[in-house]
C-alpha cells in the first residue's frame, strides 16, 4: 500500500479547524494560505483547469520559453529590419489611438515625427498625429519591443536578437540614456540631436563591432548579470558592463574613429543593456506563443493608458485594464502627482522571469520595493506561486541559486489573487517632461480576469 502513507504529512487547504484537529493528534502538516480566487473567475477557472489540453500545453509552452537561447546577432535600422515604412510609428503596449494616448506617448510620437522630418514644428507634428495621417501600431505586432513609450520610427536603429534554439527573431531600439529622452516623452532639440547621432554613429558602429564579435550569447550574459546583482529591468549595471567588455575590443577594431565616443556613451548609461535584455525576453516569450489550450502569459505591455496581456493559447488578442500609477521613488522635486500611468514594453522582462520576478537578485535596488532586502526576497518568492517553472539558467545566489520564477500562468494568478510584481521607470505625465522616478507597479486584475474568461469561454 505505497499510496497510503504510513507516516502522514498532510497538506491542509481550507478550514483551520480541520488543520487544528491534526495538530491535536501531532500529525505534521503544511497549511496552504488559501483565499478565494479573483472576482469573476470561478466559472472560468473550473473550465480552464478541466481542459484536458491544459497540462501538456503549458508544459510545452513553458518548455519553449525556458529553452530559448537568445543571441544578439546584429544592429539594423527599423526600416530595414522591420520593413517599417515612412509614416508608420510603433509604440509600446496594446494598440492605442492619438486621442487616448497619454502625455509621454504623445511627446514621444511628436519627437519621432520631427526626427523623421515629417513636420517642422511641434504644432505641425501634433496636427499630423491628431489628423490620423500616420499609422500607429504596437511594437509587439512586429516582433519588437520598446521601453517606456517604445516609439520606433523607420530611421531608428534596432538590436536584432535571434533564438538559436527555436529560430525566432526579436528587435528592440537602442537605449538613449536617462533624463530627458524620447522614450519618456521628451522631444526637445537635445533629444533629437542625440537620436540623430544614434542613427549616424552609434547604430553603425555597433553593427560593425558585432560583425567582429559574431553572435553574443545573451542567455549566458543575463545569467551572469543576475549573479552580479542585476534584475535586468531597473538594474542593468552589471549587464551593461559585461556587454561592453565583450564589445569594446571589437569596437576599437571595427570603428576606431568612434569607439571612444560610443563606449563613453554606453558606459555612461547603466541601462544600456536593458534594450538587448528586452529583445532577449521577447524572443524567448515569442517561442512560447501559439500553443492551443495554454494559459501561459506571453506578453505584458503598457501604452501609458492601458495595461495589456496576451496568452499563448489565444494568439495575438490583447486583454486590457487601466494602467496603474507606479509607487516609487521620485527624482528631484517630482512627486506622485507628476507621474504618468504605467508605460512600456519592458514588462517583457517580468514575463520571462526577470525584473520584479528576479528582485531577490538585486538587493542594491530594494528601495524600489519597500526598502528592505526581505521585501525583495518576498517579492521573488511570491512569484513562484503564479509561475509554472524555475529558470534553469537564470539563478539567484541569495536563494541558494534557485532558478527565477518564470512562466506566468493566468489560472494561478486568478487562483492566488497574486498579480505579477513589476519594476518600472516612471514617466512624467506632461508631454516633454521625461523621467520623474522609478518604482513598483501593480497590473490591473481586470486584464488577467478577461484573459482567463476568454480562454475558458471563447471558441
Amino acid at each position, binding site marked *: 500500500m505505497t*499510496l497510503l502513507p504510513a507516516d502522514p504529512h498532510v*497538506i491542509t487547504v481550507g478550514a483551520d479547524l480541520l488543520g487544528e484537529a491534526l495538530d491535536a493528534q501531532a500529525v505534521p502538516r*503544511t497549511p*496552504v494560505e488559501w483565499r478565494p480566487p479573483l472576482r469573476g473567475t470561478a466559472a472560468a477557472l473550473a473550465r480552464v483547469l*478541466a481542459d484536458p489540453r491544459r497540462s501538456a500545453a503549458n508544459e510545452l509552452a513553458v518548455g519553449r520559453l525556458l529553452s530559448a537561447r537568445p543571441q544578439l546577432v546584429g544592429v539594423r535600422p527599423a526600416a530595414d529590419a522591420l520593413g517599417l515604412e515612412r509614416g508608420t510609428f510603433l509604440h509600446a503596449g496594446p494598440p492605442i489611438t492619438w486621442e487616448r494616448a497619454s502625455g509621454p506617448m504623445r511627446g514621444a510620437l511628436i519627437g519621432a515625427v520631427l526626427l523623421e522630418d515629417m513636420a517642422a514644428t511641434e504644432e505641425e507634428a501634433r496636427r499630423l498625429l491628431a489628423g490620423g495621417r500616420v499609422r500607429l501600431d504596437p511594437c509587439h505586432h512586429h516582433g519588437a519591443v520598446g521601453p517606456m513609450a517604445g516609439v520606433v520610427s523607420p530611421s531608428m536603429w534596432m538590436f536584432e536578437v535571434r533564438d538559436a534554439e527555436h529560430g525566432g527573431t526579436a528587435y528592440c531600439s537602442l537605449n538613449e540614456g536617462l533624463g530627458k529622452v524620447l522614450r519618456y516623452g521628451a522631444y526637445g532639440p537635445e533629444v533629437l540631436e542625440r537620436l540623430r547621432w544614434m542613427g549616424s554613429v552609434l547604430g553603425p558602429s555597433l553593427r560593425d563591432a558585432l560583425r567582429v564579435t559574431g553572435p553574443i550569447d545573451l542567455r549566458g550574459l543575463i545569467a551572469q548579470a543576475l549573479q552580479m546583482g542585476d534584475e535586468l529591468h531597473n538594474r542593468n549595471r552589471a549587464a551593461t558592463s559585461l556587454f561592453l567588455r565583450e564589445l569594446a575590443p571589437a569596437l576599437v577594431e571595427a570603428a576606431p574613429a568612434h569607439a571612444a565616443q560610443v563606449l563613453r556613451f554606453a558606459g555612461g548609461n547603466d541601462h544600456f543593456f536593458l534594450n538587448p535584455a528586452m529583445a532577449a525576453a521577447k524572443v524567448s516569450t515569442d517561442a512560447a506563443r501559439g500553443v492551443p489550450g495554454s494559459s501561459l502569459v506571453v506578453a505584458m505591455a503598457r501604452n501609458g493608458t492601458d495595461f495589456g496581456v496576451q496568452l499563448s493559447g489565444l494568439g495575438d488578442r490583447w486583454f486590457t485594464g487601466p494602467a496603474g500609477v507606479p509607487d516609487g521613488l521620485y527624482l528631484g522635486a517630482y512627486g506622485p502627482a507628476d507621474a504618468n500611468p504605467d508605460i512600456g514594453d519592458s514588462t517583457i522582462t517580468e514575463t520571462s522571469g526577470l525584473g520584479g520576478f528576479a528582485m531577490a537578485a538585486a538587493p542594491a535596488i530594494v528601495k524600489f520595493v519597500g526598502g528592505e532586502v526581505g521585501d525583495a526576497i518576498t517579492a521573488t518568492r511570491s512569484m513562484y506561486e503564479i509561475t509554472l517553472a524555475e529558470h534553469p539558467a537564470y539563478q539567484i545566489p541569495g536563494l541558494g541559486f534557485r532558478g527565477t520564477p518564470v512562466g506566468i500562468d493566468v489560472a494561478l494568478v486568478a487562483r492566488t489573487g497574486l498579480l505579477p510584481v513589476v519594476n518600472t521607470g516612471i514617466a512624467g505625465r506632461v508631454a516633454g517632461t521625461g523621467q520623474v522616478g522609478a518604482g513598483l507597479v501593480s497590473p490591473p486584475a481586470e486584464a488577467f480576469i478577461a484573459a482567463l474568461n476568454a480562454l475558458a469561454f471563447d471558441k
Partner: protein
Amino acid sequence: MNSLVKVVQGVYHDSVSLMRVSQALSALQGVEVAVVAMATPLNLDLARDLGFEIPPAEPSELLVALRAEDVTAATGELERLLGELSSRSVATESAGFPPRTTRSAARLGEGNLVLVSVPGEHAFGEALDAVEAGLPVMIFSDNVPVEQEVLLKRLAEERGGLVMGPDCGTAVIGGAGLGFANVLRPGPVGVVAASGTGAQQVTSLLDLAGVGVSQVLGVGSRDLSEQVGGVSAMRALRLLDEDPATELIVLISKPPAPEVAGAVREVVDKLRTPVVTALLGTSDGDLTSATAQVLDRLGRPVPDWLSWSRPVAKGSVRGLYSGGTLCTEASLITPGGFVDYGDDVFTRGRAHPMIDATLRLEALAKLEPGEVALMDVVLGHGADPDPALRLAPAIEAATRGDVQVVIALVGTEGDPQGLRRQAEALHQAGASVFTSNAQAARHAAGSAR
C-alpha cells in the same frame, strides 16, 4: 438596542473561523445577536431572518450584522478578533512565503496526503493539484459539481491515485484522523465508506466492543451513484485488499445505485480479504447489525450497546440530523419527518452542523408539544468540542415544552469530548441517549406507533 450592518470587501476567512468570531461576539455582555460570515445567499437570508436590513453583497465579501446596546464596543471587539485571525497569516508569512495553492505546497516535497476543505465551488483546483502531484486527496468540501468529481476520479484512476470525496467527512490513514475523526484504537478492520457518519457509527461501535481499525477510507457520498460509478470505492477496496494489516473489510454506503452496487459486489467477490457490506436500503440491514456481523466474523462477542434510556411517550418523530447516513438509516427504521442539516443546501458558506448546532437548535425549539425529536450527536476531532454545553439547555427547554428528545451519540471514550461525559450530560438534561443510531431510532419509533 442598536443595529449595525456592513459589508467588507477584500477580507476572507473560512466559515468555521468566522463562526467562532460570531459566537465570541454574541457572548459579550449587551450583545443580542452577531452575524459575521461570508455574504453567501444562505447567510444573507439568515441575517434577514434575524431582522437585519441587508444591502446587496457578493459571496466574496464579509457580512457583519450586529444588534447590541453598545455597537461601538462590539465593533471594537470584532476588529480585535478579525485582527487576530489575520495576524496568524502574517506570522506564517514572515517565516517565508507560505504556499497559496496545493500545487505550491506539494512542490515543497514533504506532504504525502492532501486534505481539501475550501468552499466547494473552489475545491476542484486544489484537488486537481493533488492528483497531478500524485498525492492521495481527501475532499471534505461539499457542493462540488458532480462532473468535477467524475473528472478528478478518472484522472486519479489513470495515474493510480485515490480521490476520497467530495463530501467525504472522515478518514483514518496511517493513524491520522482526517476531517471529523473519532479516536479509534488500531486493529484489523479496514473501512471503505461512501458515508462519513456511517463509518463513524460502525467504527465507534467496534471501538466500544474493543476492536480497532487499520484504515478508514472515505470515498464521498456520491461515489456509488450512477454518475460516479463507484470508482473510488473499488479502488479503495483493492488498496485495503493489499494491506497486510487489514484482516476484514467493511463497505458502508447510503443507498447505492443498483447497477453500481452490483459492480462493486463483483469486485468484492474477487478480493482475498473477507468483506462485510452495509449498503443501506439493500438487504444488508442497518449499521448496528453490520457491526455485529463484523464482530461475529472476527469471533468476538457482540456487547449490549451502551445506552442511557428514558421512557418515551407516543408522539410523531422529527429527525434533526447532522449526519446524512445516520439520517437515512433512521428514516428507514422509523416513519417521521427527517431533515439532514449536513446537506449541501444548509452548508453553503456555513459551518457543518457537527460544528455549528445553530440551525438544529432553532428547529428543535420549534417542535410541537408531544413530538419526539430524534437527533444525532457526533463526537471526535473536528466536531464541536463540547456539544452538550449548547445542547443540554435546549433539551431542557424542549422537555419543559413537552417535546421528548432521543439522541444517537456517536463517539468513543478516547474522543476529546469523552463519550460518557457527553452521554451523562445529555441524559441529565432529559434526553434518552443511545450509542447505536438504529436503537435510538427504534426507541423513538416505539413511541410513535
